[in-house]
């Protein structure tokens, strides 16, 4: 038990309020409360409802970081309300705290959002085991501890939506499955018992699949279960190459192009990479390339710098490569 004494400080809360049935526009309500060092964000939501306004609405259930119902945004940061301590939030953002739903665009009532897009995408990745297992097997379908480790804790996801609504790509590209759906896809794709042939192809399709991930690491930062969704996204990329389902497109060539470039120069040949990735479509980059050329930003192929001891790099590529495309 902590020996630290409980401290209290004043915090001003700006709280998103909206009732889709009655309000034309959302508005913010202000509350000032004394917050103790022991409280979590959910305690604040409860106190707003119990002490200030009984009509204030939010989802909550387990209070133990298991049901995933109470995720909201605190100063723009996706947060599982029952798990996050107010002390950390005050450390992050000071004493002016804004409480909003995970997505203000999808708000139904106060903190409650319509999560249909999240669930639709979750359902799109075949989030269950596809296996030809006898209904009355003579023995158990054992998974060894070593094989179970392959899941990399993807099975701990509680579908709270924190990463999904923190992902900037989900915000822009409505086809993009998003980090939580990819975690679900990885969870079953990495299960030794699974035999689904389409899931990996599906999550590698352009626009909706892993190749549209912008690599911003927002998902890894917000996940309340420390699942590290982008790590699973990276693994889905790697699986696509290993299992031979990676299509020959601009995204996959972009990844493989790095290898070719490093093999040849040690360094990346920027122009060469774009040419290799885009093929004939490179013409669309010409206007920007010309502007860059005028400013001395383009190195001609014959002037391409090379790493010293390139032979060492080439030798290591030969001995350490684990994938073929």
């Amino acid at each position, binding site marked *: 038990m902590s020996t630290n004494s409980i401290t209290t400080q004043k915090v001003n809360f700006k709280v998103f309020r909206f009732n889709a049935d009655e309000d034309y526009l959302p508005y913010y309500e202000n509350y000032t409360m004394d917050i103790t060092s022991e409280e979590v964000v959910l305690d604040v939501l409860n106190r707003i409802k119990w002490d200030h306004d009984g009509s204030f609405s939010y989802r909550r259930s387990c209070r133990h970081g298991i049901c995933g119902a109470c995720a909201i945004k605190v*100063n723009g*940061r996706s947060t599982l309300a029952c798990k996050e301590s107010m002390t950390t939030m005050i450390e*992050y*953002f000071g004493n002016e705290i804004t409480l909003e739903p995970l997505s203000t665009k999808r708000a139904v009532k106060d903190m409650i959002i319509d999560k249909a897009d999240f669930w639709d995408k979750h359902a799109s990745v075949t989030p269950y085991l596809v296996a030809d297992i006898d209904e009355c097997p003579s023995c158990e379908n054992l998974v060894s501890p070593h094989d179970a480790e392959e899941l990399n804790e993807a099975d701990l996801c509680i579908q709270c939506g924190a990463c999904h609504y923190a992902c*900037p*790509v989900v915000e*822009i590209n409505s086809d993009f499955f998003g980090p939580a759906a990819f975690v679900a896809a990885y969870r079953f794709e990495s299960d030794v018992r699974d035999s689904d042939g389409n899931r990996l192809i599906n999550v590698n399709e*352009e*626009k909706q699949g892993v190749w*549209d*991930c*912008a*690599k*911003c*690491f*927002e998902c*890894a*930062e917000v996940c309340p279960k420390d699942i*590290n969704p982008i790590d699973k996204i*990276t693994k889905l990329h*790697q699986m696509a*190459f290993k299992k031979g389902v990676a299509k020959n*497109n*601009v*995204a996959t060539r*972009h*990844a*493989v*192009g*790095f*290898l070719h*470039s*490093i093999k040849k120069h*040690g*360094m*990346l040949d920027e122009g060469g990479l*774009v040419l290799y990735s885009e093929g004939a479509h490179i013409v669309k980059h010409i206007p*920007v390339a010309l*502007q*860059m050329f005028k*400013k*001395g*930003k*383009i*190195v001609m192929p014959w002037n391409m*710098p090379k*790493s*010293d*001891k390139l032979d*060492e*790099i080439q*030798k*290591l*590529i030969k*001995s*350490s*490569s*684990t*994938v073929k*495309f």
Partner: protein
Amino acid sequence: MKKLKYALFTGCTAKQSTPEQMMSTLAVARKLNIELIELTEASCCGASHLQDYDDFLSLVLNARNIAYAEKHELTMVTICNTCQLNTAMTKHRLDKNPELKAKVNEKLAEVGLEYKGTSNVIHFLYAIIDDFGLDKIKELVVKPLSQFNIAPFYGCHNIRPSELHDESHKQKENPYNPTSLDDLIIACGGKNVDYEEKNKCCGFHVELQAPHTAAVLTGTAIAGATDQNADMMVTPCPLCHLKLDTQTKSASEAIGREVSLPVLHMQQMVGLALGCTPAELGLKHHVTEVNFI
């Protein structure tokens, strides 16, 4: 103060599309009397794309780069956020997993190298803030940037994952409310601009496969800075710089609004305040002209 000395991992853009970044890094190092030993043997870090293809190979190549810094018995400094991510991530994974480290070293032994884990990996931004010191920089400022509102653009890979940042650097950085670049702007005499997109993604890594997404992210960032009255943006990442400086046309089209701001590399901003000339800092290499100096 003891003279600071680092092994410099330049990354690839400093030698190609952002020559001004290399020039300004060296100019600032001269002004601050920091010695940089360039790791000319280093390969590309894989930019988190080789990592999508061949994880083990990317570990071996990055471990090789670090091994050269270790040979000099120096801390490695990077001048690109994505180089920082991939190098520090390699170090993190190898230091935490002796089995993986042994496997990587088996390969490195073929070329007579070994990854020991003795060199730290930090971004140059934090080298000058944490090791050199903001107060000392302040003392050296001869041309304070006091007439400018400067919008910091942090770039994802310096601040996320925060665990990796905090492990590599002396001081923590709050990924939701980062302050280092703001502090540096203030130390250079400028007015730091607070805006929502300062810790957001520029879209660089999906430029080829998802151009619309990338362009919206870039456009939103520049628009956010503009709306808070920024005269210019400043970034420690050359990839963010490329996106914000050279892609304003597609960014403007994507968000339906003309956006364009001069964008300085962090090193250029410090260099200007320390009295370096625009020529030394390579200001002529910008696509969006830096015409206020």
